[in-house]
């Protein structure tokens, strides 16, 4: 099957957006997210990142593949596991790292922290600490997007598909033909609980059928597959064909949050998924498509250096001064 996909990728490589060089950039963005999460993990253990944080390592192909199908002024709403959503949409890694560190130069000046990042200049209408909140935010952004010729995307997990937000908003979006793509990052665990034990019906993608909504179940660790599905969904939304639900099946490498060592996952399951690391799959595909090890190594080195600079800059940044930056509840 991989061979078939590689053949299809070879056939498409002269089309706009489909060249191996462009996929190498997307691989680089995936590596940036991976390196970012590793750094945040390290900084959390050092006490530089506070409270809790939810890492998305292992799930990088989903936001990168989906956001590669978007225009810069399209809208994205992410989750509390949202570092990858922000980075995929274009948030500056140093500003994002500074936000995690609670610094004044953070993308939200240190007011948001890990779970609630907003970056409107890059179209990120927010990341939400409440499971399912992103679904509503993207649905609302789609009300505007419908008038603006744009598209909105909601990222959310399998757990959110059991929230009222999911059912109310998918119905709403289909009723009003909103240009929105609902991207379920199904990592098979809602916090510590296996998805299958609390989710009726097996697949989440099939829930779209009850709304008459288009849907696809996608290999969420395959950058090419995610991008292909996203291009179709985003293109349809932009042309007025309404919403799509994409269930992207993936797996998180870390536990749910920083208090979770993820001991509840069977070792053979973890092993199986680690063997399908989305970065490894992308590297293999890029080599198949004719890129050399040296191209990949150069990208790796470039991304690693970018991440090092981002962390260094963020660590050097000042904390916000309460006397200067206490803020007010209302816009005057």
């Amino acid at each position, binding site marked *: 099957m991989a061979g078939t996909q590689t053949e299809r990728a070879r056939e498409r490589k002269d089309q706009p957006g489909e060249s191996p060089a462009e996929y190498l950039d997307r691989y680089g963005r995936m590596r940036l997210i991976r390196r970012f999460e590793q750094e945040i993990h390290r900084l959390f253990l050092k006490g530089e990142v506070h409270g809790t944080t939810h890492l998305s390592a292992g799930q990088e192909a989903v936001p990168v593949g989906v956001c590669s199908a978007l225009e810069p002024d399209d809208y994205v709403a992410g989750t509390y596991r949202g570092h990858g959503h922000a980075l995929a949409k274009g948030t500056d890694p140093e500003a994002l790292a500074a936000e995690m560190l609670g610094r004044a130069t953070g993308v939200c000046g240190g007011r948001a922290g890990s779970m609630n990042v907003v970056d409107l200049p890059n179209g990120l209408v927010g990341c939400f600490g409440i499971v399912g909140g992103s679904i509503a935010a993207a649905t*609302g*952004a789609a009300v505007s997007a419908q008038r603006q010729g744009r598209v909105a995307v909601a990222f959310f997990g399998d757990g959110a598909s059991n929230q009222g937000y999911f059912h109310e908003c998918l119905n709403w979006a289909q009723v009003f033909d909103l240009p929105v793509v609902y991207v379920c990052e199904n990592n098979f665990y809602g916090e510590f609980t296996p998805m299958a034990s609390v989710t009726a019906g097996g697949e989440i993608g099939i829930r779209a059928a009850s709304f008459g909504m288009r849907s696809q179940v996608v290999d969420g660790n395959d950058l090419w597959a995610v991008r292909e599905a996203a291009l179709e969904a985003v293109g349809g939304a932009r042309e007025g064909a309404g919403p799509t639900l994409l269930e992207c099946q993936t797996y998180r490498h870390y536990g749910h949050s920083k208090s979770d060592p993820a001991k509840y996952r069977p070792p053979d399951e973890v092993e199986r998924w680690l063997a399908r690391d989305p970065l490894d799959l992308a590297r293999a595909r890029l080599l198949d498509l004719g890129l050399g090890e040296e191209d990949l190594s150069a990208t790796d080195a470039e991304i690693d250096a970018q991440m090092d600079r981002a962390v260094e800059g963020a660590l050097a940044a000042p904390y916000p001064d309460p006397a200067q930056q206490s803020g007010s509840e209302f816009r005057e």
Partner: protein
Amino acid sequence: MSELEFRTAIRDALDEEIERDPSVVFFGEDVALAGGVFMTTPGLHEKHGQERVFDTPISELAMAGAAFGAAVTGLRPVIEVMFGDFMALPMDSLVNQSAKFWYVSNEQASVPLVVRSAVGAGGRFGAMHSQIHGSWFQGIPGIKVVGASNPADAKGLLKSAIRDDNPVIFLEHKRLYSVKGPAPTEETVPLGKAAVAREGRDITLVSALRGVRDCLEAAEALASDGIDVEVVDIRSLRPLDHETVLESVAKTNRVMLVEEGTRVGGWAGNLLGIVAAEGLHELDDAWIVATDDTPAPYSPTLEDAWLPAAGEIAAAVRERLGVSARV
């Protein structure tokens, strides 16, 4: 002077703001084709079209979420959550999304949206169609809570709410919709400012929404007993204008707060706490008249006893001041 009905004031404010600002959209259950279950919005859909005024599914959470997402991306939504009691459903979006966005985003954008609802008891609607949700939202930074006691204020406050850059909860008391009063003389009424509805020297009564009318009626009765009552219409629960109350109390030295809601956890207790903290030296007496600590009952005899009405308000003042009613 021309007379304006309360429900028409609501409709006119919406009509004029939808006309004035192309980014204003209005949606809710039965607001478009049906014109609202209390007939507050007839004709708006026909006049402004489906793009601007539309009916929605019975999905209050999606409605508030849609309004939030639309508001941070360029629109100014007004939504109708039909009854105040239904406001328990969209609370996550309003509390965790709309109210927090301006601050948490480091002021990247604010959330200009208005949530209108019919509130209050006295209509024999029972426990799930009679609550006032003002106090539920009063303790949440980043969201304004306002409501009028008369048609002129209703129009001016709603227009201000729609023009305000922040989320605003707008309370409309059911037993005011058919009330008529003078048309407004000003285009807008500022949010966050209480109004002195009646001047007096002996005691200050503070209330909101329908309670203000009851206090004004009680004040007339008390005038014939020789008690000169000042009535303050608080109009805004957040921000809470304690200054106007303090000014009034500095004159009268007595304050009675009348709330359609329970004494514990209500706006009246909040306000009295601030008034006491800031102006204890001005106070000779202070107390609260509120509803019983039960849900709103259905039966007319039970509901009437549950609500603080004009007669009960006047009696409470007489008793406290040691004055007998003149008969």
